[in-house]
């Protein structure tokens, strides 16, 4: 696909090899899409779709909603790409759009403390039934804890601790100050821990 695209460019005398080397490996692709080469958008997706799906699922807690969010994110990205300033790192810009889409979809879904998927207990291989049960119970608990956080804290925690962005990057993506990110993730970590401690300390009556 990419090769074919390059061949087309060569035919038209627009060699992509003439570009100045750039720091962001995605910038080359962004440039090509901006130049009207729609097919290059697939390359951009290939490089970033894992990230977008992951962010969306972790924020929304629902697989199908996350897939919808990822799709909407890319359509928005494609529409907004003409206004994207080259030289700016692409991925944080993309993630920022994804977070906004998640907020929109989350609002549309309405208030629901715990997304359905986070309550599911999918069967998974474990060394014993009891171990499996406890593991799933713990997963469910942690997901409930995350889903119960205020949206700002949840997004900050997802981006900082789960996606591994730096505090400064998270601040730029969320449009808040780094000091706010720090206090949000600190609060979120403490809440998750307290939530788990409270419920895991409780006697486990419902064992199989």
């Amino acid at each position, binding site marked *: 696909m990419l090769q074919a695209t390059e061949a087309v460019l060569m035919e038209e005398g627009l060699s992509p090899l003439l570009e100045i080397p750039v720091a962001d490996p995605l910038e080359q692709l962004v440039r090509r899409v901006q130049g009207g080469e*729609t097919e290059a*958008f*697939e390359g951009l997706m290939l490089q970033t779709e894992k990230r977008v799906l992951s962010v969306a699922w972790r924020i929304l807690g629902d697989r199908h909603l996350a897939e919808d969010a990822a799709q909407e994110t890319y359509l928005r990205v*494609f529409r907004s790409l003409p206004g994207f300033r080259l030289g700016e790192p692409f991925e944080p810009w993309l993630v920022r759009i994804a977070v906004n889409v998640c907020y929109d979809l989350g609002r549309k879904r309405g208030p629901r403390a715990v997304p359905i998927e986070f309550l599911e207990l999918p069967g998974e291989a474990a060394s014993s039934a009891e171990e499996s049960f406890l593991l799933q119970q713990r997963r469910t608990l942690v997901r409930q804890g995350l889903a119960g956080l205020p949206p700002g804290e949840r997004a900050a925690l997802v981006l900082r*601790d*789960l996606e591994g962005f730096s505090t400064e990057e998270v601040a730029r993506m969320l449009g808040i100050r780094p000091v706010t990110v*720090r206090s949000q*993730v600190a609060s979120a970590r403490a809440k998750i821990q307290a939530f788990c*401690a409270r419920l895991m300390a409780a006697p486990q009556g419902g064992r199989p």
Partner: protein
Amino acid sequence: MMTPHVLDQLPLWIEGDLAAPETAALEAHLSQCPECRRAAERLRDSQAWLREALEPPFEAPDRQRLRARVMEQICTGATAKPGPRMPLRRSLLLASAATLLLASLIWNLERARPSRPVHPGLPAPLSSAMPPSRPEPTPQVSRPRPAARPSRARSPESPPLAEPARIEFQTSDPAVRIIWLAQAKPPSEPIQTPLEAP
């Protein structure tokens, strides 16, 4: 004498978010205080559980499906970026999309009229027995794009006959939005839209 407890700093320390001097002071306290050490252990555990529980469920086929859906929408012109090198193609795409939208609108209006024959001036296949999703392109539209989906347009569901139906179609160019206003007329008159019928 022991320094004050550091419980409120632990959530930052646990992920390395404290500056070096604060970190040193906190760790000095931890070495002396079993209570704060236990709290640090609990936080370390819950952070590990968080990472384990939030491992995304998506596999390669999920990503491929996403890519296919997005590229389909982009390439069909429903969201096509105005390429400066292809103005003709773009206008054709818009014309195709317009035809499809117009067709589905007309179909809706027709459907609302019981047992009326299709108006002769309308594009051929709009029989009321046919679903609106894939109307045949008219001869003027040389590049039919079947996936210029009506679903991308915000179309009101079955507009009542008395009120004008409004269809908005946002092109990829934020400055270009196509809006149809269609008023259902008595059957003898053709349906009017701001666009000329193809």
